[in-house]
């Protein structure tokens, strides 16, 4: 009795999400049959064919190039954002200069920088990297600074009372206390950065998944475009899932994040 309930639960946990995907696929297939022109809504088997071709061709290179752009831009953006936040928290003067500038730049979408980025770096790796850098910088800076400023001062006192040096207070109290906020910023920026990256590659680069879309469009290969979109969706989803996993394992101590969910 109990066992069959467990089995049922297990099956459902797979069937339910699967049924959503299947429904989407069926809907698409029907649309492709109804459509006047097969290029308008390429049927699933053609998309699958294009996906297989892509997998035998440039797919790995495209993915590696995109992840390289992402790592470069996100890495520099996150590090600079954290450093700036620490500086702003430590020196009031720095904060007085950086804060208003950040407040102005922050609402500007990274994508809007594409023309400037093309102007600055020319078509190539620089454009997507710069866009991701820009997309990561502000969410991480703003969240980290907020996190640092909200560090409970008694925790700092507790550490000092136990004999911690200044440096130790920063590395072992301030940074871990700010970590949940930093993570929230990182997830936000990775989402925005992924979108900006695809856009940057589409119009301002000659490598990566975004460029692959552009490439297929040149040849009017809509099934190629759709195959690439599928890949972009899956990788975008996986990246967020990965970060979520990292978040809940690193923030196991935080009642709001880790532990039971």
């Amino acid at each position, binding site marked *: 009795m109990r066992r069959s309930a467990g089995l049922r639960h297990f099956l459902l946990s797979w069937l339910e999400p699967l049924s959503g995907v299947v429904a989407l696929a069926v809907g698409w297939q029907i649309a492709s049959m109804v459509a006047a022109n097969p290029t308008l809504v390429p049927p699933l088997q053609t998309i699958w064919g294009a996906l297989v071709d892509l997998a035998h061709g440039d797919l790995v290179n495209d993915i590696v190039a995109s992840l390289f752009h992402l790592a470069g831009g996100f890495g520099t953006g996150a590090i600079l954002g954290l450093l700036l936040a620490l500086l702003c928290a430590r020196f009031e003067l720095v904060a007085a*200069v950086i804060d208003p500038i950040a407040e102005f730049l922050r609402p500007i979408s*990274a994508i809007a920088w594409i023309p400037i980025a093309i102007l600055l770096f020319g078509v190539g790796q620089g454009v997507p990297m710069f866009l991701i850098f820009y997309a990561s910088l502000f969410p991480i800076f703003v969240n980290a600074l907020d996190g640092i400023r909200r560090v409970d001062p008694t925790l700092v006192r507790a550490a000092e009372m136990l004999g911690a040096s200044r440096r130790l207070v920063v590395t072992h109290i301030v940074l871990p206390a700010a970590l949940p906020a930093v993570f929230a910023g990182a997830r936000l920026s990775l989402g925005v950065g992924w979108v900006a990256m695809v856009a940057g590659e589409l119009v301002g680069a000659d490598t990566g998944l975004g460029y692959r879309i552009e490439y297929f469009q040149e040849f009017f290969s809509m099934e190629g475009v759709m195959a*690439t979109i599928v890949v972009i969706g899956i990788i975008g989803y996986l990246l967020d899932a990965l970060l979520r996993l990292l978040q809940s394992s690193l923030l196991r101590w935080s009642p709001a994040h880790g532990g039971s969910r």
Partner: protein
Amino acid sequence: MSPAMRIGLPFAVVAIVLVAWEIAVRASHTQGLVPLPSGVVHSALALTEDGTLFSALGSSLERVVIGFAIAAAIGIPIGLAIGTVPVLDRTLRPVLDGLRGVAPIAWIPMAILWLGVRGDAALFVVAYAAVFPFILNTSEAARRIPRSLFHAAESLGAGRLLLIRSVVLPGALPFVFTGARIAMAFAWGSIIAAELAIGIKVQTARRAVAGIGQLMVDTLYVRRDVDALVLYMIVIGIVSFLIDSGLRRAQARLMPWTQR
């Protein structure tokens, strides 16, 4: 730090940087390749006179508003549905997460194919970008309404309509509004990208398609006017800032019970 310094200091720093920039560009004779602060001011004066900037801005904003409205009309009902019906949530979430992972701009080729280059394709991209914040925040809002609130209101003898008006809406509205704020930011960001991408494709053929993104493509590839490009960027920044702070202020005024 005195309030005067608080305001004056950032301006002073920015001014010093700009002057240094101007001197550096002039000294290295790279005008035309690198934007020049004084050149930006010049093109600002020229462009406000001939009005192209404002008409482009107007048509972009129009698309943002329409795309935003479409996203709200689609996103809020979906969000309510998956927020209140758990089975729907479990079946649709992976699909939605997957679709969300696709950069809206990636749909440009399909959107052009389906809707044409005349602006409807850009509209599609805008609506696509803006729909997810609506779905996510509305479903979260619906999910967060505590069951106990329903019970409490019911035991006080409140009818269904009153329940929705007095319990569900005040609890859910702030979330939905936050979603709308994010959606607006996404919409405005992606209209520029969409117009850019479409603009690059139809650079010379169809100049009639106006919008700030196309204007930038034109400036970058045809007129090669780097100063104007920076000016457009500043305008985009100001509009972004105004949209963001305007919506924040509206939220604070309309829903004073929200934190932040």
